[in-house]
């Protein structure tokens, strides 16, 4: 029991060190934004896929925004992927098609397997361009975003591109404010540090791009995956393609406004991520492929982030058991020192990362909300652990993974 606990403590320390490494890199290290200066070029043909399943509340916003972006005329085709919508999504899309002839080609999908990956997979029959951009329907791209996301594809090593997601409905309630802080830390520090350090920036499946030839080489979209973005990141990596992160390619999104929707969302992410961990973890660490040593280590740690929630809960349970059975070595002196050190440094790591991110963003007062993140973390740790347990039980019972769409909160225009 004590050795399991040692192992868990060691893994937690590794993640703690990783948090500090990333944050210090963002604060003091060399920042890589190699493609952001490409403002003049012979811009290639690009297809923009907009994944939409019952998105009548938001679809018109993104289509309007895409019709006003700065990209050479005739070089961009928008394909709204209407995945079995039962609301007014189809009508809205068809209206846009009429208003902007030749610029939007709808893909209405009436049946087939559920899930974003399955819908994108089917929509690929319409795609002929080498560069593909993907947006979820609740995103609102700015004028220069398409060029910024296309620019990295001039690098022949790049297979995938990820932009930065910025919550739009920040001020709605405590949850949206906490999610705003989490997103800030995740993108401004985590993703950019991975980019700086040539590790594994994660493809997010939205505000993102993929190279058609790379996608074909890795076998296309994986409709078995709950998180096609994580799946894509690792398959690209294993085939020698890089995913790059563009921190200055920002795009507004809508974050969940109720805890129920948030829990559902994070449980889906956890299941998909764990699925990728089981599928690619060992192969990434030990297999023969083109990833570098640092990519293997970082990629494995990234795969394990959602598994850390149940592991941490187990660690707490073991720590209690060890304490009450009195088996701590050296009469608990080491444990006491370790606990004190962790309370001072370890717990602080995630908060330090988010505070640093907020500072980099130039925001001030929202850092005050940092203590409330404990609440967000607590909800996440139990939801993610629950997802992991249900995943294990699904494995035993042979139940199929189920894809849940995230509910939207925007008012219909």
């Amino acid at each position: 029991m004590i050795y399991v606990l040692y192992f868990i403590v060691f893994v937690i320390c590794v993640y703690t060190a990783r948090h500090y490494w990333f944050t210090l890199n963002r604060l003091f290290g060399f920042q890589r934004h190699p493609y952001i200066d490409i403002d003049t070029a012979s811009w290639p043909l690009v297809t923009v896929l907009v994944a939409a399943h019952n998105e009548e509340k938001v679809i018109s916003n993104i289509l309007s925004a895409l019709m006003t972006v700065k990209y050479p005329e005739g070089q961009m085709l928008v394909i709204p992927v209407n995945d079995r919508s039962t609301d007014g999504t189809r009508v809205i899309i068809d209206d846009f098609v009429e208003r902007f002839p030749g610029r939007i080609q709808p893909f209405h999908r009436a049946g087939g397997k559920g899930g974003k990956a399955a819908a994108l997979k089917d929509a690929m029959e319409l795609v002929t361009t080498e560069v593909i951009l993907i947006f979820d329907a609740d995103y609102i791209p700015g004028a220069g975003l398409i060029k910024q996301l296309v620019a990295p594809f001039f690098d022949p090593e790049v297979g995938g591109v990820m932009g930065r997601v910025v919550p739009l409905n920040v001020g709605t309630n405590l949850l949206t404010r906490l999610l705003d802080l989490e997103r800030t830390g995740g993108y401004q520090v985590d993703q950019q540090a991975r980019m700086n350090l040539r590790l594994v920036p994660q493809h997010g499946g939205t505000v993102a791009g993929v190279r058609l030839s790379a996608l074909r080489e890795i076998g296309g979209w994986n409709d078995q995956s709950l998180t096609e973005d994580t799946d894509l990141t690792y398959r690209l990596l294993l085939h020698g393609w890089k995913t790059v992160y563009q921190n200055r390619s920002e795009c507004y999104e809508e974050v969940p406004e109720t805890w129920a929707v948030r829990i559902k969302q994070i449980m889906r992410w956890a299941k998909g991520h764990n699925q990728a961990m089981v599928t690619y973890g060992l192969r990434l660490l030990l297999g023969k492929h083109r990833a570098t040593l640092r990519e293997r280590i970082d990629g494995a740690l990234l795969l394990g982030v959602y598994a850390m929630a149940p592991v941490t809960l187990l660690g707490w349970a073991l720590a209690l058991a060890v304490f009450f059975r009195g088996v701590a070595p050296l009469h608990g002196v080491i444990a006491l020192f370790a606990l004190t050190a962790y309370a001072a440094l370890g717990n602080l790591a995630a908060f330090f990362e988010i505070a640093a991110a907020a500072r980099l963003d130039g925001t001030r007062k929202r850092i005050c909300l940092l203590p409330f993140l404990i609440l967000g973390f607590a909800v996440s740790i139990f939801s993610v652990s629950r997802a992991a347990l249900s995943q294990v039980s699904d494995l035993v019972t042979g139940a199929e993974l189920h894809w849940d769409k995230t509910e939207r909160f925007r008012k219909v225009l």
Partner: protein
Amino acid sequence: MNSSLAVAALILFVSLMLMLPLVPAFVELRRKSDASPLNVVQQHAGEIRHFANSFRTYIQVLEPTLQQCVASGTTASGILSDGVEYLALGRCDDSQTLPIQQPGAVCPVTIASGSDLVLPPEITFLRDVYAGGQFRGGDSNSYRAILGEKNVHLGHSSRVSRWAHAVGEFSAEHDCELSGRISSDTCIRLQGACNFLRLNAPQIETGHVMHGEDSTLLNSEDDTNASSGVVQRFLHDGDFEVHAGELVTGNIVARGKLQIGAGARICGSVKSVGDMILGAGVSVQGSLISGKQMLIGPDCNVNGPIIAERALHISAGTRCGSLQHPTTVSAPRIEAEEGVAVFGTLWAREHGEVVAS
């Protein structure tokens, strides 16, 4: 005090102490003083002419005054709506009447000329300068910003701290320091020892450029192979070398250093994670990307974007892009020898310099 009360007081005290760090959080949650979405630049999107366009709009209120000055051959002065003082000039020699003739003088007002503008040397202009016609600055002048509706010419050792835009040609004599955004709708010409950061024009030339026809990088058959959509990718885990005169059809990715021999032709794009060295006369149809330093030899032709993450040296006779295919050349530090032509954007994040070949 009985013991129950003491315990209750202790619990209350501890609870209050625990709540203390949360006070700012509760205050912010209630006040929502920083609850708006992060300000994402949505519209002008880094457009190099943004400041020039804004200034043109800003100065439009002076249009009638300028027309009047030009028609009557007089000068006028006044204060703009935001409190900035201006001087409107009607004749090209009006600057001789400015109260700033002595070397080292500082001109604190916005200068707007309805026609050509010729400025005396060794003056510091603290406000923006507008020329409705040709602009010719004296030697060793220092400008905040310049907008010229025709050609803009800077005398030697001049300095621009924010931006300059010429509708016509922008040219700078030797030893100029161009710290901000410099753009032209036709051409930018920089002489030796000029420093720059961000340049944008259909054609940018350093020193004297030998003008030939727009380069035909590859013959039509090669071109067809390379542009037919998906091109083959050659991935090399270590250092790699393309031999002199070799023709490669496909994209090359080297995870180490990459050397391309003289006269080689690449129908595709090239990436090296380490340093990249191009010999003389190399042609690349796509882009050149280096994770570290890049050295482009003399008389090379590159069609696509050129990015070096650390430093870039471009030798004389090299052409980056073409009039038909404008491109971007970018690195934190750029040295461009005299005789280099770039079609599009030349962007040095930290320091760019025209050096002798």
